[in-house]
């Protein structure tokens, strides 16, 4: 009986292993894997750019890169890391694991999910298309006007920047809508909001932040593009415009974005630290609450990026106070993690070591962040390497280290094979040492007055040895990352089989096979506690097979707060239209860069036609 059911579910949910299936799949597991691989590729691209920069700065008066090329490389490094690695990699984990964590068979909108992946990929390829024409963006990741206006930045570089970001915001918005509805609509019966894994809280928070904050980036980039290509005057003082408007719009988006790349990482840490400490997390409600509050207060801190532009004392004091408030919420989380480890029986796996390394780096990055929230200090170190150091401690420490912890923790579920723990431990220590050797000296360089974004420096200012140390550190860090990448490839063939639950973890994704079947679990699970796999309740107990749902591509919809079973949610079949839609959208953006308006119009019409086909009612596949 049960094998017949499994066979039928597989028939219903499996994507055919054909070329068509490859482009048309809407399976969240396929799409999640693609997100992770693509984002890692962008991490490696951005990392190589960083190494080239460190080579240029290793000694005084180097000529490895010309000033213009150096500007393009540091901009591409920043834009790649912040937009095409740091957020998409977290989306990758969310797309793969959230349906499994909540016992659903897919995301709420599977075709939208495929759409957001393709637009993430194509917008990234579009951005890197600028390298092919030799005109990459060169204005830093926040691209301040007037430097980025047509007068001072001729060529196509900044047009690529503005259009690629508009392209990416479409993808990110779609993803945010998908996460919110998935989490509020498809949770397994019994998984009330007070029993959700903490990763869901962080993903919900950042999805709401994206919905409200990301349009600001869209508006800013549209204004920039209109100014540059069509002679508008938004940022042009001679036409009555205001250059500061760019900074306002960019940071209204920009600071919530910092939490977008940070909070889901803390959510993952809040899930894996308890597993390796063999006890539930300390202060679950406080951790959940501080996650949500960080997202909320994160909207009131953007001006702290602009203390140096000259504003009213009152305004600046408010934003300074809000910025310091945020550190309270982060502190709540840090102490909850420490208390969990302290009172648990920690098992020092590689994943756990990355998590501990993350806490150390977050504390350093957070402390030097508080230092820069103090306005007089900020005026002193603004635009110096002190800020470079701060943001790398936060981004590398609080995004990349948790991501590696998550890789060592969750990859066995995705591939079905364990990673080598010894290599993982080596990789961790090398990365941790490399990270600190690279970025700690930058604090000192900043205090000694080395400004950021200079392509070289004269000797005799006391910067030489610190810069050399930093460059050596960067290569050590790269070796550490490389070790983990090799570890991954070696595990694919030689790794020990993982089995369902190698870490004896508590959440639902570990109740499925490794790798999970196309349909997830046979019976939609029910949940009675925060730790489904640690309690006595049998999640898949279902004598009448009422939760098999093999009547079609179905999953269970439930109420938002109490997760009471509500209805059957019909899921769409595989579809080629999301992919084709994105081809048309890429055509549209390419046409805008070269200003072929008829081609752009053709792109728009193609998008509309494809969208109509996408949404048109289709016959429903019945079980065989």
């Amino acid at each position, binding site marked *: 009986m049960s094998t*017949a059911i499994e066979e*039928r579910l597989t028939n219903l949910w499996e994507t055919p292993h054909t070329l068509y299936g490859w482009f048309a799949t809407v399976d969240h597991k396929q799409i999640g894997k693609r997100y992770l691989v693509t984002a890692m590729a962008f991490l490696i691209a951005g990392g190589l750019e960083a190494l080239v920069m460190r080579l240029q700065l290793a000694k005084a008066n180097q000529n490895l890169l010309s000033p213009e090329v150096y500007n393009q490389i540091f901009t591409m490094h920043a834009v790649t890391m912040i937009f095409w690695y740091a957020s998409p990699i977290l989306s990758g984990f969310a797309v793969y694991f959230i349906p499994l964590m909540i016992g659903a068979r897919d995301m*709420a*909108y599977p075709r939208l999910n495929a759409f957001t992946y393709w637009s993430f990929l194509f917008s990234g390829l579009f951005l890197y298309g600028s390298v092919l024409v030799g005109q990459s963006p060169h204005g830093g990741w926040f691209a301040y006007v007037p430097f980025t206006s047509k007068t001072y930045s001729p060529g196509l570089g900044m047009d690529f920047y503005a259009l690629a970001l508009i392209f990416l915001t479409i993808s990110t*918005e779609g993803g*945010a*809508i998908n996460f*919110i*509805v998935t989490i509020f*609509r498809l949770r397994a*019966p019994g998984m009330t909001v007070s029993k959700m894994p903490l990763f869901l809280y962080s993903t919900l928070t950042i999805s709401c932040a994206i*919905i*409200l*904050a*990301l*349009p*600001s980036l*869209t*508006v800013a980039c*549209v204004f920039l593009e*209109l*100014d540059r290509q*069509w*002679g*508008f*005057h*938004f940022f*042009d003082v001679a*036409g*009555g*415009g*205001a250059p500061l*408007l760019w900074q*306002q*719009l960019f940071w*209204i988006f920009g600071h919530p974005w910092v939490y977008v790349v940070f909070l889901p990482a803390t959510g993952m840490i809040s899930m894996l630290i308890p597993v390796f400490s063999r006890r539930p997390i300390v202060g679950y409600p406080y951790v959940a609450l501080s996650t949500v509050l960080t997202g909320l207060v994160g909207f009131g801190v953007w001006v702290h990026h602009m203390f140096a532009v000259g504003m009213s004392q009152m305004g600046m004091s408010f934003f300074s106070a809000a910025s310091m408030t945020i550190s309270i919420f982060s502190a709540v989380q840090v102490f909850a993690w420490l208390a969990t480890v302290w009172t648990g029986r920690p098992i020092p796996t590689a994943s756990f070591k990355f998590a501990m390394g993350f806490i150390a780096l977050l504390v350093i990055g957070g402390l030097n962040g508080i230092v820069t929230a103090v306005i007089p200090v900020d005026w002193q170190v603004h635009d110096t390497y002190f800020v470079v150091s701060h943001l790398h401690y936060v981004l590398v420490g609080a995004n990349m280290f948790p991501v590696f912890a998550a890789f060592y923790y969750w990859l066995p579920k995705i591939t079905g094979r364990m990673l080598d723990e010894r290599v993982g431990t080596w990789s961790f220590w090398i990365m941790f040492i490399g990270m600190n050797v690279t970025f700690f000296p930058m604090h000192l360089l900043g205090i000694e007055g080395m400004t950021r974004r200079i392509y070289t420096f004269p000797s005799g200012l006391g910067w030489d040895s610190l810069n050399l140390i930093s460059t050596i550190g960067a290569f050590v860090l790269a070796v550490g990352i490389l070790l983990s990448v090799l570890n991954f490839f070696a595990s694919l063939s030689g790794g020990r089989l993982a089995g369902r639950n190698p870490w004896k973890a508590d959440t639902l994704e570990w109740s499925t096979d490794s790798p999970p079947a196309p349909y997830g679990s046979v019976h*939609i699970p029910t949940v009675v506690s925060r730790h489904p796999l640690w309690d006595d309740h049998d999640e898949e107990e279902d004598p*009448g097979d*009422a939760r*098999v*749902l*093999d*009547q079609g591509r*179905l999953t269970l*919809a439930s109420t938002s707060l109490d997760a009471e*079973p*509500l*209805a*059957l*949610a*019909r899921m*769409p079949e595989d579809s080629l239209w999301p992919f084709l839609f994105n081809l048309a959208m890429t055509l549209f953006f390419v046409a805008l860069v070269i200003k072929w308006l008829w081609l752009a119009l053709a792109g728009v019409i193609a998008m509309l036609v494809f969208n*109509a086909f996408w*949404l048109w*009612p*289709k*016959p*429903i596949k*019945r*079980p065989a």
Partner: protein
Amino acid sequence: MSTIALDRLPPDVASHPPLVSELDDRRGTAAMWLFILTEAALFILLFFSYFYLAEGGWRWPMEEPPKLHLAIPMLVVLWISSGVLHWGEKQVKARRYSRGRAGLAVTILLGLIFLVMQAFEYREHLRTLSPQTNVYGSIFYTITTFHAAHLILGLLMLLYVLFLPRYEPVDRPPHRPFHNAALYWHFVDFVWVWIIAFLYIAPNTR
């Protein structure tokens, strides 16, 4: 919500009926609300930019404010269109589908009339002010064109619903397409109210 058609299933599948027999038809509406929320954020930021560029002068521009003789009738046209659409939705709920379709067609017609009026309005405006004249022209045309683009998107949604073969609740998506498209249309109309208030009426109050 509609009940799923279990009777057409093969006997071995129908032998274990699912936990619930209702079919979820609200996910599309949820997505539409979130889409409207993010679009609302977009327009709020455009208005923020408008006032930021006005440097606190809420009656900006000081000389020659935009004329109201077309803008106010355009507002009325959109109000009527929203009313008609709402009436059409009620008809669909009461299973009078051809009346619903008629309401939809009238709404689309009113939307097109709005666009024609806006074209005339632009022609009048462009004699004295172009987007390239100064920053006021830039933000004025950007906001109004953004609105027009969203209105066209709303029109396309309505057009799609007009051509859908069936309005009866069915167990296949799209669910409640009329309702979802109507939500978006009401939102676009609502934005025009704020455009009228901020960009047209406020500069004329002196």
